[in-house]
């Protein structure tokens, strides 16, 4: 039943944003001139377009994040039953984290964590 409230909240967010933007549009018609349409570069016309290659470092961190995020998702159900399972849970998670940590050390060794 509660999921209805999520739809209500989405509606609230869209109504709030759209209402604000619409009021802004109504109050200020604006005027058009070629300078206004340029990207903001502190007054200088940009030399290169930003839509080309960027530093590969961001990609590496995104990959690493993916590994650990999936690990984190596995840990949520585990965390809720730790107290019932007792020591078995601890041993299992130590093995789990150990394997992942090996991968982390490998990435570290290969220089994936070094910022270029």
């Amino acid at each position: 039943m509660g999921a209805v409230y999520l739809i209500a909240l989405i509606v609230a967010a869209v109504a709030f944003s759209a209402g604000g933007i619409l009021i802004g549009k109504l109050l200020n018609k604006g005027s058009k001139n070629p300078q206004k349409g340029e990207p903001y570069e502190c007054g200088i016309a940009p030399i290169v377009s930003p839509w080309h290659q960027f530093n590969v470092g961001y990609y590496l961190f995104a990959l690493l994040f993916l590994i650990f995020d999936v690990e984190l998702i596995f840990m949520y159900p585990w965390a809720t039953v730790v107290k019932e399972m007792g020591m078995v849970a601890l041993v299992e998670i130590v093995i789990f984290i150990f394997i992942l940590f090996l991968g982390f050390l490998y990435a570290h060794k290969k220089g994936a964590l070094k910022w270029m």
Partner: protein
Amino acid sequence: MFSLKSITDSIQVWLSANLGATGALIAQCVIVILLAIALFAVLGLVLVLMERKVAARMQVRLGPNRVGPWGSMQTAADTLKLIVKEGLTPDGADKFLFNLAPYIVMIVAMLLLAPIAYANNFQIWDINIGVLYVTAVSSLGVIGILMAGWASNNNYSLLGAMRSGAQIVSYELSAGLAILTIVVLTGSLQISEIVQSQADGWWIFKGHIPAIIAFIIFIIAVTAETNRAPFDLAEAESELTAGFHTEYSGMKFALFFLAEYINIFIVCAIGATLFLGGWMPLHIGNWQAFNHIMDYIPSSVWFFGKVFFLIFLIMWFRWTFPRLRVDQLLNLEWKYLLPISLFNLLLVTMIAILGWHF
């Protein structure tokens, strides 16, 4: 203990008696919408003013003091100004994504209001996977930021968005691990159960040293996740002018700004719920008389008091620490915080199993 349950229940009974099941549901949705928008507006006004006043205090100046008593209407005046400003879209921009991004950011901020317990029995949706829901939805926010940076067709924006994305996804890990320590201690993901489990003391007091370490890691991680100084490389004014929202103006800029402050409120609310007991008054074990006196302070006062304390802490950071470089930032997360929080999780697991917490 004061409870809003009687009020919400009587509203529920009255609505379903007068409007039928469907009508009552629609009426409740309307109430939720109005409350959420009101909370958004009030929080935006209060937090922006608080930020400026705190900043002024820290730098020994007065801060806004012209509009209204003690400058209290300054943010309202600023909002009015932003509404009448022209909303520009650059010629080279990807128009669709450029206009969509503020909506995404706002929707994410709004959705995060759902599972938070604002007071005793006052919660929009007590979902049984509350904590997981919060981490899942909050990670969607980065999509809006990347969208805004990419669509602007501006070098500053793209760099800001990329930095912000790398930073948010990195620090999400240690924030998630810090949250997990409390889940291990309570054995539940539901916000109401986490709050109830702190009825005989907050986790930061009874969770031993690991809870304190987790709290510190959580505060550092959420400061980075909300792109606040000292982790504000995403919008480092001196190098990137304004980061991912450089090209936004008028109301669209105001929406990004508002969403940023709402996100600060939300992460502080989650921190207060997990570590400082949410709306739970300060209780100490079996001190019945003391606990009873504390119960006379309404639960909403406790909740907002804790949240604003944490918000003040995060604002304090901004004027205390210098900004990090991007490599220092990623080093801090991947070489220090992540291993420490993994180890801390194992430690807290041992303590939970052996029952060493109070």
